[in-house]
């Protein structure tokens, strides 16, 4: 049963990710992005990281995709015509895929990929309580830094998206 679910979610994630890349209209791409993110959240559930699955759905499928859609509709970008990538890009993409495929095949061939299914019944990551405990003990400094980073990002976004003064009123100083 779980195997079927795994293959189902993996296929959903990979297919929708593929459609994100190839869809001509960015709005369709953003919609497929939601499917991909929710599918990854489902894979997190299969890995018993329930808290991360919730966070993934809230932050990615919620906030990030909404931001993307908002910007796409704000800029009113028309869908591109046929996607005609440069030859050098195609070569680079093919090379990257070949390297990655080599890595995956090597992983399977080596047989040293890591422990196979024998799993404990419940891991600590499945409880949100452990997240809170780790965040406020071992990872206290990164946690505070992340808060500061969010503040800095907020200030930066407000500054960047501020309406810039028109060129007539702005006189560049020459000295």
């Amino acid at each position, binding site marked *: 049963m779980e195997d079927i679910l795994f293959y189902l979610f993996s296929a959903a994630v990979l297919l929708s990710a593929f459609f994100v890349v190839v869809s001509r209209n960015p709005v369709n791409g953003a919609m497929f992005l939601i499917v991909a993110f929710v599918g990854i959240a489902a894979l997190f559930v299969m890995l018993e990281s329930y808290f*991360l699955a919730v966070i993934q759905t809230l932050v990615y499928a919620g906030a990030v995709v909404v*931001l*993307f859609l908002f910007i796409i509709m704000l800029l009113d970008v028309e869908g591109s015509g046929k996607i005609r990538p440069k030859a050098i890009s195609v070569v680079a993409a093919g090379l990257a895929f070949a390297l990655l495929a080599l890595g995956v095949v090597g992983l399977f061939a080596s047989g040293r*990929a890591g422990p196979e299914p024998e799993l404990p019944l419940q891991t600590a990551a499945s409880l949100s309580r452990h997240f809170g405990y780790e965040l406020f003990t071992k990872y206290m400094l990164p946690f505070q830094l992340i808060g500061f980073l969010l503040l800095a990002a907020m200030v930066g976004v407000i500054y*960047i998206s501020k309406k810039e003064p028109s060129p007539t009123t702005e006189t560049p100083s020459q000295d």
Partner: protein
Amino acid sequence: MTVGLNAFLTVSGLLFAIGVFGVLLRRNTLVIYMSLELMLNAVNLALVSFSRYNATPDHAMMDGPVFVFFIITVAAAEVAVGLAIIVALFRKRGTVLVNEMNVLKN
């Protein structure tokens, strides 16, 4: 569950490859950005599956999920800043296509 670590890593690798394709083959900045998010998610999936399959009852292996938690937070901040930059670029140049952003060339 009979699905092993290798299956999750394969999915993660394929997802990362699709993200790389998006970054390399597309010219729309917004689509490139979405592909970047896909790549981040692929790495998250790999981290979570590694920590899940290496966990033992006496050693909980919380580092992977906590790391993913931080990655998600940074990614959210990064998306906000990046999209603000794209909007500013669109205001200045009137386009979001990367092949038309060659102002430094002249």
